[in-house]
């Protein structure tokens, strides 16, 4: 089993390199480069300056050489420098990452726990009011564009009923005490987390309801009841562990997206996360930053996949080992 994990990690490593190469060439396909973007921002400039700038960024060399240079750099653990910020990409991303991770991970945890409970409860009385509510709510959450939901929540809970701050991650000026600073950040994160969680939650309650309904009809559930087990034990021990498998699959997929999957929510709530950094870098053709974020996203996805497989194996003994 240990060998299988090492195998998976090596495979993931190869995959990451492939992703880097692919991303590099894909970016070249977009029209214009960082110099065009800079000159456009500055209101135009002469071709001589442009050529000089390109040479200073190494953009005058053939694409293939550029790619090899970048790859070599990444393998040494260096993601390069941002053209725009003139700062190390690694530091730039690490500076934006905590905000994103706080948002996405808390939304994910809330959604998985609540969504599963919703689904289980709905499945216990499949024709009851709550079950129908879950169905409608899931459809709503599934179909609503997240930026619209975010704006409505923003309007209601930050403007009409000003309970929470409308933008950013910190108050200016920041509170003195560390605990107050912590509360301040939590306060800023409530609305965006809520927005993202509703969206995720819809999916989890839908999937766990369906999966639970399926499992509750299984023969081993009937066996558990004929053994005289109590209903909570039947539901939470015998049914849930089987019904949770699809939930784990979905959670694994979304775990892969925690790195850069909240662009819209972060933009609506003006959070200084990885999402807006990526978006702005695309506009500015700041290739090293874009590539850096995509690299981070690829690594996160692959790691999340390996973790999901390991959890799967723990939960379902029929899956022998990952290969």
């Amino acid at each position, binding site marked *: 089993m240990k060998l299988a994990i090492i195998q998976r990690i090596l495979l993931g490593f190869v995959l990451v390199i492939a992703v880097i190469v692919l991303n590099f060439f894909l970016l070249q396909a977009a029209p214009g480069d960082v110099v065009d973007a800079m000159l456009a921002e500055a209101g135009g400039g002469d071709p001589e300056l442009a050529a000089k700038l390109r040479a200073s960024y190494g953009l005058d060399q053939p694409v293939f050489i550029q790619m090899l240079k970048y790859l070599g750099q990444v393998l040494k653990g260096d993601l390069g420098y941002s053209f725009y910020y003139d700062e190390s990409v690694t530091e730039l991303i690490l500076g934006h990452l905590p905000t994103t991770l706080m948002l996405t991970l808390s939304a994910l945890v809330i959604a998985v726990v609540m969504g599963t409970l919703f689904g289980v409860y709905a499945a216990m009385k499949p024709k009851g009011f709550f079950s129908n509510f879950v169905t409608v709510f899931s459809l709503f959450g599934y179909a609503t564009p997240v930026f619209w939901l975010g704006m409505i929540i923003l309007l209601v809970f930050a403007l009409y009923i000003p309970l929470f701050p409308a933008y950013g991650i910190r108050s200016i000026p920041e509170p003195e005490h560390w605990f107050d600073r912590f509360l301040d950040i939590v306060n800023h994160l409530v609305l965006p987390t809520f927005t993202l969680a509703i969206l995720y939650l819809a999916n989890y309650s839908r999937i766990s309801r369906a999966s639970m309904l399926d499992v509750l009809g299984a023969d081993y559930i009937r066996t558990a009841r004929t053994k*005289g087990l109590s209903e909570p034990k039947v539901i939470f021990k015998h049914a849930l562990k089987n019904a949770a498998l699809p939930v784990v699959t979905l959670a694994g997929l979304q775990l892969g997206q925690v790195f850069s999957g909240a662009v819209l929510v972060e933009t609506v709530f003006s959070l200084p996360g990885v999402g807006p950094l990526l978006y702005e870098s695309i506009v500015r053709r700041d290739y090293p930053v874009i590539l850096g974020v995509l690299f981070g996203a690829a690594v996160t996805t692959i790691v999340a996949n390996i973790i999901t497989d390991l959890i799967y194996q723990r939960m379902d*003994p029929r899956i022998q080992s990952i290969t």
Partner: protein
Amino acid sequence: MIGPMKQDNPPNSAKQQTPQGNTALKVDNLSVVFDVKGKPVTILSDITFSVERGETLGIIGESGCGKSMTALALMRMIPSPPGRIAGGEVNLNSENLLEVTKKRMSAVRGKEISMIFQEPMTSLNPVYTVGNQLVETIRRHKTVSATEAQEEAVELLRIVQIPAPEKRIKEYPHQLSGGMRQRIMIAMALVCNPKVLIADEPTTALDVTVQAQIFDLLKDIQQKNGTSIILITHDFGAVSEMADRVLVMYAGFKIEEGTLDEIRNHAAHPYTQGLLRSMPELSTDHDAFRTPLPEIPGSVPDLINRQPGCPFGPRCPSATAKCHEMPPMVDLGANRSVMCWLAVEEGAA
């Protein structure tokens, strides 16, 4: 060793005259109704029978006749909605199980009445070890420590003749064969030495040699513990192998009841006679294999749109005009009855 439940007892033997005190389970007028699109459909109509201590009662009938539903009704496990028990009594230890609280009922399940099923492949939870599922049953009904329960589980596996029980107990259901899984289901049902063991087609999914082993095991357990077994099956071979008495069901009715010998050799109901005729027999005569088996013409009646009169009437070779009316249950002796107009006429003649 072979106790009072030897199968070829003559009718009206001592066993059938035993006093009520020896009755393990007594079912009176049990009726089950399903609501299909707002319309009540009767699935079981006034089923009455009793099971003596240490005896095997075979319930036989074709698919959809209500035999499995009877088993589930005894355990109060009819899926509800849409199903519900519309009336009757299920008496176990002078306690009507249809009236006890849900909590009491769940304490009865697995302790006083246990059940094993047709599908050993899917009846065990795939994500827990055999030991885990046995131990939780033991600890549900007995106050013992985890270690004691573990030891007891190993002992149970030994009783159901599973080789290397200490090893098997740590395995998951998918690592075991079908026969092995059915043995584990039996072990699980035996945790508290139940008074009644309901076996719902326990060997249908198993091959013939394993089937014989499972029957031997059940007989063995019955002799040791005096367990009453209700064997539900569509296979007359299984009934002949196991049962002391037989109850024949058709379309939710009990249509005939008697000892194995009475049913096998003196069947009174045309349906039972048809059922027996359609059983293949081993013969040395090669031509016999080439002649098609007799069958009962027609198919099972539609329970949603029931016709008045005898449920078997439309398929019955001996049907008369009278069969448009519901035949009464005719008593032919102790625990011997048939629901047919023919028996009424014979009795009158």
